[in-house]
C-alpha cells in the first residue's frame, strides 16, 4: 500500500494538492491510478488558464476510459508537467511524485475544506469496500 503524504490535501474525486505559500502543485492519488489502470494520456490546461475549485480542468485517460480532473482549488496555471505528455505512465509508477499542474492560489483558505491524508485514507477504504 502506498502511503498518502501528510503534507498533501486530498479531494473526494481523488486529486492531491500540495501547498507552498501562495502556490500549489496538483496531481492524482495512488488510489486513482490504481482504479484507472494503465494511463495513456493526460490532457492538462495551458499555462495561464484559470481553474475553479470543483470544476474540471482536464482529463486523464487509461486504455479503457476517460476521467475528468477536478480542481481542488481556484487559481491560475503557472506550469504544466511536460513529461506526462510523452510518459503518462509515470503516474502509474509514482502518482504522488508525478504532478500534473502548478497553480497560484486565488484563496489559500480553500485548502481548509479539503481532506487530510488520514481522512482521505478512511474515505478510499470505504469506497474500495463496496
Amino acid at each position, binding site marked *: 500500500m502506498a502511503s498518502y503524504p501528510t503534507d498533501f490535501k486530498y*479531494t473526494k*474525486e*481523488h*486529486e492531491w494538492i500540495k501547498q507552498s505559500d501562495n502556490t500549489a502543485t496538483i496531481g*492524482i*492519488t495512488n*488510489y*486513482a491510478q*490504481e*482504479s*484507472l*489502470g*494503465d494511463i*495513456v*494520456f493526460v*490532457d492538462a490546461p495551458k499555462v495561464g488558464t484559470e481553474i475553479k475549485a470543483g470544476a474540471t480542468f482536464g*482529463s*486523464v*485517460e*487509461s*486504455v*479503457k*476510459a*476517460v*476521467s*475528468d*480532473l*477536478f480542481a481542488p482549488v481556484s487559481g491560475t496555471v503557472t506550469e504544466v508537467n511536460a513529461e506526462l505528455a510523452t510518459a503518462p505512465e509515470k503516474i*502509474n509508477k509514482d502518482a504522488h511524485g508525478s504532478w500534473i499542474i502548478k497553480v497560484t492560489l486565488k484563496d489559500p483558505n480553500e485548502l481548509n475544506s479539503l481532506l487530510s491524508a488520514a481522512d482521505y485514507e478512511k474515505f478510499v477504504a470505504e*469506497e474500495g469496500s*463496496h
Partner: protein
Amino acid sequence: MSVAEAVPALRKTALNAVHRQMGAKMVPFGGWEMPVEYPAAIGCGIINEHMAVRTGVGIFDVSHMGDIRLAGPGALAAVQHISMNDASRLAIGQAQYSALLYPNGTFVDDVIVHRLGEEEYLLVINAGTREKDFNWVRDNTRQFDCKVEHLSDDFTQIAIQGPKAVDLLQKLTDANLSAVKFYWLTHGTVCGLKNILIARTGYTAEDGFEIYIPSDEATSARVWNEILEAGKEFGAVPCGLGARNTLRLEGKLPLYGHEISDTLNVWEAGLDRFCKMEKADFIGRAALEKAKAEPLKRTLIGLEMTGRGIARDDYKVLDQSGKEIGYVTSGCPAPFLKKNIALAYVPPAFAEIGSTLNVEIRGQAVAAQVVPTPFYKRPKKN
C-alpha cells in the same frame, strides 16, 4: 478525478471468486460481472495482458458467452434459415463466423457456428443477447425437424489466446492440436476431463483455442488454475475484458452494439464475405438483396489519430470543414500498434484510404486519417 461506482446485482460466472481472489477489477458487461483487468501487482493490466496475447499467451474467462445447440435431421436447414453464412459448407469439426439477421437485414447478433456432428450444430452467441438470441432461434426454427437447446449455463468457456496457446494447451490435453486448423474443432481430454470441446477460435485476432468445460465452480477453478500453472513457462497471464476489447479492435472484429446492431445492415458493416447470398433463402436475404441495389448510406472505416487525442465510442466524426458526418463505434489506444485507433461509420464519400477527417474530442476537432483495416493482422506461419 471520478472513479466508476460499484454496481447492482449481476450474473456471475463460475470463476467469479477466482477472479476476485486474484484481485481483478470487476465491471458490469452485458448483464454480467466480469474481470476488466488483473492487478499490476501480479504483472497484469490491460497493456500487459494485450501484449501477452500478441507475443505469448493470455487466458480469458469467457463463460458469459452463450451457447445454443441445434440437433436433428432438420438442423442444417434450420441453421441455414436463421444465419447468413453457408453452413452447408461446414465439415464435421469445422466452424464459421456468421450472423443472425432480422428480416430487414440488420443484426440480431453475430455468432460462431460449429458443426459438432452429422446433424448437430452449436451456435456461440454474445452475453448481452443470450435470451434474445435463444428466443429468436427457437421461434424461427419451429418448422424444422430439430431440437433447440439453450446450453449457456452448462459451460465454463475459457479462451487460451496467443502464438503460444497451442504449446500451452497441448501440455494439458491428449488431443493432437497441431492437426486442428484455425476455425476447426476437436474433442479430447483436458485436465483429466473427458470429451471436452476444443475449438481453435477466439476474439483476439490471434491464434488460440476456446474450451468448453463443465460449469461447476470447483471444476472451473481447477482447470483455470492448471492452465495458468502450465502457462508459466510461456509467460501466460490472465486477461480481462479490457484487453479482449483492445485485441479485437486491432483486428477489426465487430462488437454487437457497436459495429453491428439492429439498426446497421450487413453491407454497411462490411461483412459481405460472411453473407452467402447464393445459398438458399434465409431471414434477412430479401432486404439485403434490395439494399444491395441502392447506394450505401454509411460504411465502416478505420481511423488512426494523427492529432493528439484518443477517439472513444460515440465521439463525432467531422469532415475537414467541421461538419458532423458520422460517429466512432469503438476507439482506444492500441497497445501493440502503439497508435490511437478507431472504427467509425461515415458516408462512403469520406471512406477513401489516406484521406483526413476529424474526431471531436471534448469540443476540439482532432485530425485522423482513414487507414486500411484490419489495423492488425497476425503474422502468417511459414
